[in-house]
C-alpha cells in the first residue's frame, strides 16, 4: 500500500538519513543550491533528503517518474496549493491540540473548538480537492498512481465518511444559532436573539420617501476580524450557556477527533515539496533556454557521458548565461585531467561534474540534454585552499594528510574530484607527488576529475583523459569556458598571451631601445 511519495516502500523510507551536509558540498558549491531550492520551505525539514544520496536505483527511478508527471504545470500548481494548505492545516491543528489542554481558560474554549471544526472542515475540502486533481490529470508514475488509489479508498472509508457527516451536522446546527450582545460601558451581556427589530432597516424605510436617486450599493470594504480572542471566547461561552446541547456536541467532536487527519496524506503534503521546490528552482533556468533531463544510472563505469552540462549554482547566479560542456569516458578511461589557463572554467567544470552526479543520485532531473551516469557510493573532494606564504610547508603537509584520508575512504565505486592541490610545492616536488596521487587513484579504479596546472600529468596512461580549457584563437586573454579533449599546451598558451602583451623576447627587445 502507498506509504511515501519519496520512497517506493516503507522500509526504504525508514532508513536513516544524514542530518548534516556531506563534506563534498562545500567544495562542489552545492550548499547555495540547496539554500535556494529550499527557500520558503524551512518548516518542512527536507534538508536531510538532499544530504543523503540514494543507494538503490529503484528509488531513483520511482522519483524520476514522479517528476515527469509533475512537468504538467497546471497539475503541479494545483497539487502545490493543496499540499501547502494541508501542511498549514496540520500545523494549525497541532497548535489547537496544545490549547485544548491549556490551563488558560480562553484557550481551552468553545472558540477553539470552533476553530478545530473549521480546520476539520477545511481538511475535508482539501483532501477531496486533492483527489479531484488526481482524477483530472491521471498520473503515469507509480508513486502518484498509488497515492491516488490510496486517497480514493480513504475518501470512501467509514471513518472519513463519519467525520464528514459529523462536521456537516455541527456546521448546520451552529449556523442556526443567533444571539444578541448588549454592550454597555465596559461589559457585554449575551442572550438568545428574540426577533428584536432591525434598526438599520427601520432607518432606511422611514426615510425612503425622501430618496431621489436610485439606490446604489456601495462596496463595503472588508473589515478584518474585529475581536480579540479572550473577549470573543467569553462571548461564545455565554452563547454556549444558552445552547448547551450543541456546544457539548462540539466539545465531544473535538475530544473524539483529536487526530482526525490521515498520517499518510499529511506525509504526502509534507514530502511533495521535495519535488515541487526542485522544479520551481529549475523553472527560471529552463525559461532562459538551459536543458534538464533524467539521467540513465548504471553500475558499471562503461561509456559514461553527459552532454551540455553546467554548474547549477553558477547558472542561477548568472541567470542562465553559462557555457555548457560535455564529459565522457570510453573504454578504460576513468580520470579526466583538466589543464589550462587561470579562470578558464576548470573549477566550474569540476563542480559541474560533482553536482550532476549528486543530484542524479537523489532521483532528480539534472543539467544537460542527455547523460549516462555512474551509480556511485560516495563523492570525495579535495579542493586546494587559499595559500598563505607563512604556512607553505604546513599547507603541503595538510594537502597530503587530507589526500591520504580521502584515499582511505575511497572505493572503486567512488567519485573523486581534486582541484589544484600541491600548488604550494616546488614544481618538481609537485610533479612527483602528483604522479603518486594519480597512480593511487588509477589503481583504485575510481571515476574522477583532476584539475591541475601540471600539464605533465595529462597524459599519464590509458586511464586518464587530457582536457583543456580553451581560449579564443585570436585573443588568448579571452576565455571561452569550453573544456574539450586536447593535449595540454600550457606553454603554447602562455606564449600566445605573452605575444598579445608584446612581451615575447623579440617584442620586448624591440621595445627596449636605447
Amino acid at each position, binding site marked *: 500500500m502507498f506509504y511515501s511519495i519519496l520512497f517506493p516502500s516503507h522500509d526504504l523510507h525508514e532508513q536513516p538519513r544524514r542530518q548534516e551536509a556531506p563534506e563534498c558540498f562545500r567544495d562542489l558549491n552545492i550548499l547555495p543550491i540547496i539554500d535556494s531550492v529550499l527557500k520558503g520551505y524551512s518548516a518542512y525539514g527536507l534538508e536531510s533528503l538532499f544530504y543523503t544520496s540514494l543507494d538503490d536505483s529503484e528509488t531513483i527511478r520511482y522519483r524520476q517518474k514522479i517528476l515527469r508527471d509533475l512537468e504538467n504545470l497546471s497539475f503541479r500548481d494545483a497539487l502545490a496549493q493543496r499540499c501547502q494548505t494541508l501542511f498549514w492545516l496540520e500545523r494549525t491543528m497541532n497548535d489547537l491540540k496544545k490549547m485544548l489542554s491549556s490551563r488558560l481558560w480562553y484557550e481551552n474554549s*468553545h*472558540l477553539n*473548538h*470552533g*476553530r478545530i*471544526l*473549521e480546520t476539520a*472542515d477545511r481538511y475535508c475540502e482539501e483532501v477531496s480537492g486533492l483527489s479531484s486533481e488526481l482524477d483530472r490529470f491521471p498520473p503515469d508514475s507509480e508513486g502518484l498512481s498509488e497515492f491516488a488509489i490510496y486517497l480514493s479508498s480513504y475518501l470512501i472509508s467509514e471513518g472519513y465518511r463519519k467525520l464528514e457527516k459529523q462536521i456537516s451536522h455541527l456546521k448546520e446546527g*451552529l*449556523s442556526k*444559532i*443567533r*444571539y*444578541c*450582545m*448588549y*454592550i*454597555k*460601558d*465596559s*461589559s*457585554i*451581556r*449575551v*442572550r438568545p*436573539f*428574540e426577533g*428584536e*427589530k*432591525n*434598526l*438599520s432597516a*427601520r*432607518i*432606511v424605510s*422611514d*426615510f425612503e*420617501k*425622501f*430618496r*431621489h*436617486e436610485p439606490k446604489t450599493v*456601495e462596496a463595503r470594504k472588508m*473589515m478584518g*476580524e*474585529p*475581536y*480579540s480572542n*479572550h*473577549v*470573543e471566547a*467569553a*462571548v*461564545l461561552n*455565554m*452563547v454556549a*450557556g444558552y445552547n448547551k446541547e450543541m456546544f457539548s456536541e*462540539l466539545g465531544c467532536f473535538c475530544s473524539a477527533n483529536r487526530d482526525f487527519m490521515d498520517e499518510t496524506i499529511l506525509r504526502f503534503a509534507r514530502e511533495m515539496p521535495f519535488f515541487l521546490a526542485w522544479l520551481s528552482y529549475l523553472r527560471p533556468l529552463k525559461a532562459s533556454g538551459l536543458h534538464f533531463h533524467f539521467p540513465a544510472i548504471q553500475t558499471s563505469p562503461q561509456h559514461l557521458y553527459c552532454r551540455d552540462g553546467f554548474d547549477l549554482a553558477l547558472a542561477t547566479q548568472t541567470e542562465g548565461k553559462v557555457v555548457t560542456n560535455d564529459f565522457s569516458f570510453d573504454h578504460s578511461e576513468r580520470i579526466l585531467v583538466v589543464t589550462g589557463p587561470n579562470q578558464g572554467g576548470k573549477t566550474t567544470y569540476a563542480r559541474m561534474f560533482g553536482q550532476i552526479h549528486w543530484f542524479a543520485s537523489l532521483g532528480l532531473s539534472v543539467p544537460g540534454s542527455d547523460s549516462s551516469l555512474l551509480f556511485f557510493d560516495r563523492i570525495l573532494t579535495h579542493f586546494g585552499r587559499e595559500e598563505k606564504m607563512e604556512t607553505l610547508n604546513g599547507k603541503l603537509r595538510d594537502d597530503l594528510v587530507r589526500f591520504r584520508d580521502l584515499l582511505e575512504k575511497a572505493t572503486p565505486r567512488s567519485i573523486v574530484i581534486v582541484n589544484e592541490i600541491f600548488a604550494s610545492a616546488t614544481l618538481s616536488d609537485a610533479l612527483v607527488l602528483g604522479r603518486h596521487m594519480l597512480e593511487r587513484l588509477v589503481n583504485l579504479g575510481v571515476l574522477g576529475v583532476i584539475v591541475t596546472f601540471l600539464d605533465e600529468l595529462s597524459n599519464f596512461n590509458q586511464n586518464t583523459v587530457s582536457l583543456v580549457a580553451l581560449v579564443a584563437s585570436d585573443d588568448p586573454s579571452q576565455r571561452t569556458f569550453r573544456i574539450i579533449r586536447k593535449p595540454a599546451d600550457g606553454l603554447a598558451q602562455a606564449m600566445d598571451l605573452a605575444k598579445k602583451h608584446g612581451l615575447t623576447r623579440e617584442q620586448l627587445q624591440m621595445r627596449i631601445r636605447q
Partner: protein
Amino acid sequence: MNVFLMNRECEASPNADPIFGKNDLLNDLELDRILDSMAGGDSAVRDICSAALLHPLLSLEEIRYRQSSLRDALSFPQAVRSFYRAVVNAFEMKRNSWYWISAFPSVSTRYQEAVRLLDFYADVLRKLRGLADFYWDKFVSEGFGNLISMLRKELNDDYFREIRDLLFVLTHDSGILISASLGSHAQGVDYVLRQKESPRFWGGWLFAPVFTLAPRDDAGATDFSNRKDLALTDAADALTQAVEHIEGFLKKLRDETAFFVGCLNLRDALHSVGMATCFPSLHRGMEADRNWEGLYDVSLALLVDLPIIGNTHRSEGNLLHIVTGANQGGKTTFLRSVGQAQLMSQCGMFCGALAFYAPLRNGIFTHFKREEDHTMTKGKLDEELFRMSSIADHLVPESLILFNESFSSTNEREGSEIARQVTRALLEKGIEAFHVTHLFDFAESMRNFPKVEFLKAERFEDGTRSFRILPGKPESTAFGHDLYKEVFGGQVPDSEDETRKSNPVPPSSQAPK
C-alpha cells in the same frame, strides 16, 4: 416625495443647460436688471430664475401649468415666501452650527452627528407641515395643490410619531444591542444593530450572563469599540443617507419656490412704480398674430424707478416688423420690450404690459449692434455676419429674431442688400423678425412683400419724441438734425435737398447714416 411647482413632470434645476445665445439675450434685453430685481439679493433665487428665464418652455401645456402655479403664488405671496424662508433658514442654521470635525469621522461620530441632524430636520419638516396645514384650502393650482396635499399626507402625525420614536431609540446613551450569528469557527458574524424593546428588555437582560473588562485590558477595550463600530456601520450609513435624502428634498423645495419668490419680488417692484403686469396669452398656429397693450421695457422701468410709456398695437399675420424713425425715439427700448415679453411669457411668467397676445416661438434670438471688436480680430461687418451665421446654425422653424441696426457697419447700399437677402430668406422660412433699422433702402424694398408691417418712432413737429412706436412708413432721414440742433445749438440746413444743391456730390458716396 417630489416638488413639481414649475413643471408637471420634471424638477427645476439651477444647472439646466441654457439656450444658445444666452449671453446675447442677457445683454441685449438687459435681463440682468430684471434678474437682480427678482433675486432681491438672494443668489439661490437668482440662479433659479436665470435658469428658468434662459430656458423658455416650448409647449402651451407646460406654460399653462406654470402660469397656474404662478397665479396661486401671486394670490398667496405670504405662503410662498414662508415655504421658501423655512427651508433657507434651515440651511443657514445648519451651516452655522454644524461642521464635520474631521475629514474622516469615526463610525460612532458619524452616527451621532447624523442623529442630531435628523432631529433638527424633523423640526424643519414639522414646520413645513404646519404651513401646509395653514394653507391647505387656499391653493387651486395643480402644482401647489399637489405640494400641499403631499406634505400633509407624507408628513402626517403618525409619521412624526414614528420619527420621534426612532430618534429616541437611536440616541442611546446607554448600551447598544447587536445580533449575530456564528461563522466558520463559531466566531460572531453578520452584526446587526437591534432595537431595545422596553420594558420587557430590562427584565430578561438583568439576569443575563456578563463579561466585564478588567481595568487595564487595552486589547479588550479596543475589541469593544471595534465591535460597536462594526454594528453601527450599517446604521451610520443609513442615517447619513437619510440626511442626504432630506437635504435633497429640501433643496428641491427651495429651488422650486425660489422661482415664485423671484416673480413676487419682480411684481412688487413693478407695481410699486405704478407699472402694470398681466398674464400673457400665447397661441400656436401658422398665423403670427400679435396684440400688445401698454407693452413696456421692464428693465428700464426698474432702472428709472418711475412709470414709463408703454406701446399698444395690433398685428395680424405679419412675420416681418420693420421699425424706423428718429434717433433716441424709443426703438431699441421697444425692441427690448418685445423680447422681454416674449421670453417672460414663454417662462410661464407675467409680462410687462396691460395685455399681451403672441405666438409661441421655438427659438428667440437677438442680433444687436455691437461695439468695435476690441480684440481687432474681426472687422465690424465681419463680426456682425459671423454672429448672424451662428444664429443661422441654431434657427428652428417658428423662431423669432430681434435685429437692432444690423448690417449698418457698412454703407447703406451694401447693408441694405445684405439685410434684404437675410430677411427674405427668413420670411420664406416662416421665421418672424423685428428689424430696427436706418437702412432706408432696405426698408423701402420690403414694402411690397406680404406679411410685412412698418412701425415708426413717433416724432412731433417740433422734434420732440413721444417714445411711442406706431404704425408708419419709413422716412429717408432719421432726423439727426433735431439732435444736432439740440446738442450743438444753431441752425442746420433744413433739408438734405438744399445741401445737395450747394454741394453736388455723386449719390454713391453719400455719407452713411
